């Protein structure tokens, strides 16, 4: 079963009078349960591709199906629900809500989903923070954390809802290799045990060791 289908996807960003073509006709199918890595030089279109698959952006041309639904036909409300319930996104610039503590940031999507009692939500968030080795910083505010620590909180937030699809834009870029490996093996375990689909972009050869499929991208085109 395919989770994501891209058919001849293009994405142009307007830039002054002209436009930048970040993707120029990308087609591929990603099966459920994939553990896939997108590699390519800087500016090749990795983030753009992940944004489209994560339903935070819309393609300029082509058809994108996520879980069988044509995203161009969904309204803002549907897309928001899709992001909340089915997708976990780990951004390249890992934003957290500044006024919430680490624990509260991880609870955030669960609270939006109204999934369970506050005590259950709290437990789930704590468990996930333990997995990313951040439980000792639960009460800290994001401004009191290092870049790598924030990245791990963002990862916990993306995984805590147990989404079908996790998109991670260079998840290990700010992490030392030991922590990076711990997180990657956590992802691998979730992939194996729960069938969660993982799609990364990365430059990191360590990450590539974990990937089952690798897609190469250059100047907005897939290279096979």
């Amino acid at each position, binding site marked *: 079963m395919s989770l994501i289908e891209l058919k001849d996807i293009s994405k142009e960003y307007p830039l002054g009078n002209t436009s930048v073509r970040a993707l120029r006709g990308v087609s591929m199918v990603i099966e459920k349960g994939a553990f896939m890595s997108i590699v390519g030089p800087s500016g090749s279109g990795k983030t753009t591709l992940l944004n489209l698959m994560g339903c935070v952006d819309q393609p300029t041309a082509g058809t994108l199906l996520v879980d069988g639904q044509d995203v161009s036909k969904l309204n803002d409300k549907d897309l928001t629900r899709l992001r909340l319930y089915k997708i976990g996104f780990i951004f390249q*610039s890992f934003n957290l*809500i500044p006024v*919430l503590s680490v624990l*509260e940031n991880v609870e955030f999507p669960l609270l*939006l989903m109204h999934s369970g009692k506050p005590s259950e939500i709290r437990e789930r968030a704590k468990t996930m923070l333990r997995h990313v080795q951040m439980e000792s910083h639960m009460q800290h505010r994001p401004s009191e954390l290092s870049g790598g620590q924030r990245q791990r909180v963002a990862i916990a937030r993306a995984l805590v809802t147990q989404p079908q699809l996790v998109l991670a834009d260079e998840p290990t870029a700010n992490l030392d290799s030991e922590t990076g490996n711990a997180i990657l093996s956590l992802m691998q375990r979730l992939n194996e045990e729960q069938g969660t689909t993982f799609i990364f972009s990365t430059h990191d050869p360590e990450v590539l060791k974990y990937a089952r499929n690798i897609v190469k991208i250059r100047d907005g085109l897939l290279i096979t």
Partner: protein
Amino acid sequence: MGLIFRIAWRNIFRHKGKTLVIGFILFLGSLVLTVGNGIITGLNEGLQKNVVEGFSGDVILAADKQINESVLASMSGQTLESITAYPTLKPKLLALPYIQKILPVVVGYVWVLNESGQPVDHYLLGVNFNAYRNFYGENLAVLEGSYPDAGQQGVLLSSTIRERIYDFSGFWAIPKGQALNTHHLSPAARQDGDKLRLSQQLVFLGLSQKNASLDIPSEVLGVFKFKELNKLLGFYSLLDIESLRECVGYFNAETKKVAPTTAQSKLLEAEAGTLEESFDFDTGATLSGGKPLSKELFTVQKTVSKTPAANWEDGTFNAIMVKLKPGYSPKEAVKELTAFFKSERIPLKAIRWSQAIGMLGQMALIMKGALLVFVSFIFFVAVIIIMNTLSIAAMERITEIGMMRAVGAPRAFVSNMFVAETGILAAFFGGLGILAGSLLVRLLAMLHLSTQNEILQIFYGGDTFQPRLDLVDLLLCAILLCFVTFLAVLYPVSVARKITPLDAMSRD
């Protein structure tokens, strides 16, 4: 909801500068609103108390033919339509459960004549002095002379009118048998020194319904001022009712009974007819040096008026002042009375005091309007500033909001967050403003500021500034505060709602 409030609450402390700006504006706006409200309520209640209790009563009854409803301040100078058969009306009115007491009067618009200077126009209230005093109690301060007795004929002159008469006619009225009280002289009159012309009598020229006119010499019995709002109400003097009836051409109590059978009244009617033809009232030419009034008519009237009325209540009136029992509003009473008159086929109409006092009531309305405009302006400015500050806040939080949206927060979450944040600020700072406002109102009331300025008197609703707030006012302030907050937050919310996850990412 808990999550939204938590975020809102912490954002308030995180962005202290903005919190203080918005808080200050909300505080100030609510303060002004509350104080303004207190002034308006004080004005309303002051006017109500001082005018109702000392000048007009709650409701004024007039003949149903009476078109102009500002019966106590009719600008046209026309004599009001007459009310007859008061003795039969009286028991019916007093039987009504909401009426406490009634006072039948004649309202007259007259000219004060004199040989040399200009005539002065002047409102007179024709009353039975005893009945008037029973109705209004000690609403007047008699400055010179004394409060007239029931049977006395003459005028209880308003000190304001005395000054006016001096300004236009050049003489100073003093009560009969009294020496000049130099303390009460107006600055202009004081300058005359020994040359000041004194008079113990005034001649009133009344205009009757049929445009006939009669002039009545009247002794000055006393000089008074209204204890409250004299600057505004002092254009009225009190005249004994029989004299005013003569003056405006109503038969007085005694002659009414005999009139149809006497030759005198026939003569009177005939004379009135000729007068009507020979006078040009539109131009008012007769008032200043026109034809002298008919000698015969004058004598007839004099003889008639010499006969004391058997019962003053039997004669003609043109207004009945009504005081309601405590707890009844003039508005309700007017409704009830109107229905009552209709069902009983009584040819009367009921007029609320605020309408009956005409100009004065309108000036109060204008005053209230001006205050309202001022308060609205303050709030308008407040809305703009808050709106602006919040819009900037929305723009500054693009990354944060876009990220929330990316994680799956719906637009409503973003709106609610802004509304909650502003709501908390409004509740706290606005509440504080309302509290401070009501304290200020209390403080202002305790100062007992008093004024003799007429504009300020309307503003105060009396001689002293007595702003006050009741629970309804405070509730109104709170509702207005909510409304303003709602208005201020509308635009920033629409800005925040449009922020997409992508906006957040293209930021760094």
